[in-house]
């Protein structure tokens, strides 16, 4: 089992490389083959590793400048919780199905990931402040 510091480093790398550098290869490397996504997926997407990778690919197109910053982390056993803020500009249609607004957004999320003995993520639960994002983009 990874140590708490190793868990934090794994999490930091996931956020830095996958979200901030948009490196899909790192997502492929760090998600376990039996990964389960517990957040409701978009229609047609499966709540597994393949679905998560598809979701990231779509997510990368939503904003050309989005950056995620870690505000808090909590590690215990095989789980790590992360409170983040994501800032960016809606250059690519950040709300699925809606055209780009080119407005800035700043949205907080809290996520929980489970890590296996090999240091790969096996589960994800998370909630983002979508209502605030919709307000910032003038959709609510």
């Amino acid at each position, binding site marked *: 089992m990874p140590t*708490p510091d190793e868990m934090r480093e794994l999490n930091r790398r996931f956020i830095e490389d996958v979200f901030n550098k948009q490196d899909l290869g790192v997502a492929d490397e760090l998600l376990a083959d039996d990964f389960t996504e517990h957040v*409701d*997926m*978009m*229609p047609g*997407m499966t709540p597994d590793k393949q679905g998560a990778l598809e979701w990231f690919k779509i997510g990368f197109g939503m904003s050309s400048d989005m950056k995620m910053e870690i505000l*808090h982390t*909590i*590690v*215990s*056993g095989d*789980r790590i*919780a992360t*409170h983040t803020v994501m800032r960016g500009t809606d250059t690519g249609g950040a*709300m*699925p*199905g809606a055209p780009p607004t080119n407005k800035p957004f700043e949205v*907080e*999320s*809290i*996520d*929980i990931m489970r890590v296996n003995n090999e240091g790969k993520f096996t589960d994800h*639960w*998370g*909630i*983002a*402040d*979508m*209502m*605030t994002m919709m*307000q910032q983009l003038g959709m609510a």
Partner: protein
Amino acid sequence: MADVERNVDVVRRLEDAYNRRDYSELSELVRDDLVAHTPSAHPSKQDAEGLTANNEGAHSTFPDRRTEIQDIFGEGDLVVSRVHQTGTNTGGLPWFDIPANDAKVDFEWIQISRHDADGRIAETWAQIDLPKLMQQLGAMPAPGGM
């Protein structure tokens, strides 16, 4: 009891108190200068009276309201809890302009709490699956996803 276990226990006791609508231990569990960060709002100060009013409001909207902690753990002075709530909207949500409509809700929130040296909750950050809640209440169209 180690501080982390004690802090986790405080969150469990508070959730249990809210379910039982018993506010007698609130001042042992939460500081009266609690700062609460909730979605779509500026951080607000909450005292025991405010927390009681919030919980009573939730129970008047959903008289059968039940919450269950799905996951909880802590580190340092922080605790994270993932909570599942069910209920039936037989009371209405006046502040969202939603009438009583017998809609069943079934959604989650995740909260991080920061605890003081006595274990009392000093600050909270919560994310609620509001789009799902609003859809279940019939107040928002079904999404393209996210």
